[in-house]
């Protein structure tokens, strides 16, 4: 899945909805994540204060983003971290490849990184004859099964333990079938330890990059992230440019929001703060640390005061967990790297509306995502804005592919709707006509889709307008 495959959302949705096991796995997993988040934030007043703080910190960072990025580069460089800039994923991939070549490394061990997914790095390296080894347990599982992540935090969430047992048994040589979670984890550990020991280069993402100190902060629960960033001689960190924050004191509220929203944890098992490669007096740690800062459309988002809010995201995934659409179709149906509500606003901006605009229609605008977002991204408002840009009636669209859905038929329908709702006479005529058509409206057009699982709305013989008039309700 990715850039090159054709994207047929409807087909994906139909497939996902028909997969009972998938829907059961998703519902169970999302229920657990939602409950855990609720339990870790029992005081709603405190949570709201925290969300406001998170929003303010990220807003402040975005406001001075160019300066902070320069400061981050300067401080990282001072600390001995080599900083690389990539305008698009192609450039980012090339940078990683160069590092691999320079160290003559046949394989790279990877901690969990959504930006590396955005780069389709594994696929790219594979074409260059380099093996990318996913070491996060979830990523490890789906890599064995040649799948992509279905969730940005818990990539194998669509699998239950029986399915994982079968994958391990089938794909890892000499592995007896077991559904015991401890044993499964031990198997993964056994396989991965060898890879860590042999790897010359390790890769990680970045949760927060602190400009003031030149520090890369990484959260994880398995220790594989720390292995990737400390065991190999070379550590490459990849990040989207929105990950930079101003100062160290910005970290505590954001960290609390991130781990609480993502997995319902007060704090993760590991919080790694990387400030430099191994120093001369130190006995371990990587000899080289590289930071690849990726744009890939982000500065375009930054330029628009409304779309800019997409970049507030700290990738906690809680909008996925609370989304009534995501829980039913899962991450793969979205056909792109970032699924769920955040994917609905991020993907069309990255890929263009023509390719991914359909995602903006996959929302009932119920508002559950906006309600839980730890940094208060108004996701429903941004979805609505993308719908506007899809038709681009006033020629103001800023997203690539703006106006791709513009068509006369739909424009006329809404024009007609407007006229009927501005003219009391037309409005009353319309309602009356519909009431006279009989008990049921004819099942054509949208009603045909509506009536697949519902009866047709019954238009009343006398409208409320008529009833109010007849019953003497005052009219002014």
């Amino acid at each position: 899945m990715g850039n090159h495959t054709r994207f047929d959302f409807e087909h994906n949705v139909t497939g996902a909805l028909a997969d009972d096991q998938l829907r059961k796995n998703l519902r169970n997993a999302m229920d657990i994540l939602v409950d855990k988040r609720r339990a870790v934030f029992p005081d709603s007043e405190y949570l709201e204060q925290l969300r406001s703080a998170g929003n303010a910190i990220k807003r402040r960072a975005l406001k001075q983003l160019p300066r902070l990025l320069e400061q981050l580069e300067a401080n990282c460089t001072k600390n001995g971290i080599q900083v690389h800039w990539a305008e698009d994923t192609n450039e980012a991939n090339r940078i990683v490849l160069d590092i691999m070549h320079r160290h003559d490394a046949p394989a790279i061990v990877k901690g969990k990184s959504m930006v590396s997914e955005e780069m389709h790095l594994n696929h790219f390296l594979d074409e260059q004859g380099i093996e990318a080894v996913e070491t996060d347990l979830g990523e490890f599982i789906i890599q064995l099964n040649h799948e992509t992540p279905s969730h940005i935090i818990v990539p194998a969430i669509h699998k239950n333990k029986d399915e994982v047992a079968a994958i391990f048994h089938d794909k890892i040589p000499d592995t007896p079938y077991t559904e015991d979670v401890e044993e499964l984890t031990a198997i993964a550990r056994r396989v991965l330890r060898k890879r860590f020991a042999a790897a010359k280069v390790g890769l990680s993402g970045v949760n927060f990059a602190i400009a003031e100190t030149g520090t890369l902060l990484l959260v994880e629960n398995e220790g594989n992230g720390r292995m990737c960033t400390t065991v190999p001689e070379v550590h490459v960190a990849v990040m989207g440019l929105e990950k930079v924050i101003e100062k160290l004191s910005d970290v505590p509220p954001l960290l609390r929001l991130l781990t609480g929203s993502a997995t319902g944890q007060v704090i993760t098992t590991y919080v790694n703060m990387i400030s430099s490669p191994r120093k001369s007096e130190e006995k371990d740690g990587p000899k080289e640390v590289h930071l690849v800062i990726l744009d890939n459309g982000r500065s375009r988002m930054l330029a628009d005061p409304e779309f800019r809010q997409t970049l507030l995201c700290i990738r906690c995934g809680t909008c996925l967990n609370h989304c009534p659409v995501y829980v039913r179709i899962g991450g793969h149906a979205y056909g792109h790297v970032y699924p769920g509500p955040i994917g609905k606003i991020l993907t069309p901006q990255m890929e263009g509306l023509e390719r991914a605009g359909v995602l903006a229609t996959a929302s009932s605008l119920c508002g559950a995502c906006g309600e839980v977002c730890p940094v208060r991204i108004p996701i429903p408002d941004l979805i609505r804005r993308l719908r506007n840009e899809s038709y681009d009636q006033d020629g103001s669209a800023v997203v690539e592919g703006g106006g791709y859905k513009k068509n006369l038929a739909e424009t006329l329908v809404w024009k007609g709707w407007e006229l009927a709702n501005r003219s009391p006479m037309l409005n009353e005529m319309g309602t009356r006509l519909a009431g006279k058509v009989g008990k049921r409206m004819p099942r054509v057009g949208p009603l045909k889709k509506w009536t697949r699982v519902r009866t047709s709305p019954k238009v009343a013989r006398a409208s409320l307008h008529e009833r109010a008039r007849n019953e003497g309700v005052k009219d002014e």
Partner: protein
Amino acid sequence: MPIPKEIIMQSRNHSDRSNTAYFFGTCLMDAVYPDAGMAAIRLLKSLGVTVVFPPDQSCCGQPAYNSGFTREARAVALKQIRVFAKPYPIIVPSGSCAGMMKHHYPDLFAGTPDEDAARLFSERVYEWSEYLATVLAVELEDRGDPLTITWHSSCHALREMNVIRYSKALIRQLKNVTLVELERETECCGFGGTFAVKQPAISAAMVKDKVDDIRRTGATTLVAGDCGCLMNISGAMEHAGVAIAGKHLAEFLWERTNG
């Protein structure tokens, strides 16, 4: 049972307790649920409110607003702003339409010559149960037989208007009514306006789960505060042969107290 004090105190402005109030009937109520609309008006009148129903009203504009047709939405919204011109409170029997008029009108008209008018209009908007519970601090007397119901929380009533507490406080005043709550009361029913026909398969899966949840409560009536959700859920129940009645809160309360 009187409305708890802390709920009344949440009322935005006690001076809104004027004798006269506008009623915005919503387009769905107008065409499909006029009984609910009349019940909402009658209940207000029985509580001493002089209800004004401007005949030139139509739709809040949300269908176009959420579908990418902002210009058309603005034109229809402006019509409402002009029609509801007097400084009366505007009572809306839908959390979704009320949310549109209260929270989205200011954005919709931002930077236009009608910006101030839109803001002043939005400040007068009340969801129907909110007005009853806070401004009128109503005490309902249940005259109906014992009945078990369940309640669906509409997304915009919950997340934009934050009025579910008022709707439920009114239901809890009915001494013969047992409210069995849904397992996933706050999960969207899958209506979402044009979403239901733009993504019919996802919407169908959502409403099916909602109906299953409703069935599990053993209730004989589903009460909700939004006609969009009702039309979706009731339509799905009827299609599936589920004999549970769907009722708008206003119609339900009117029947219980005056039936």
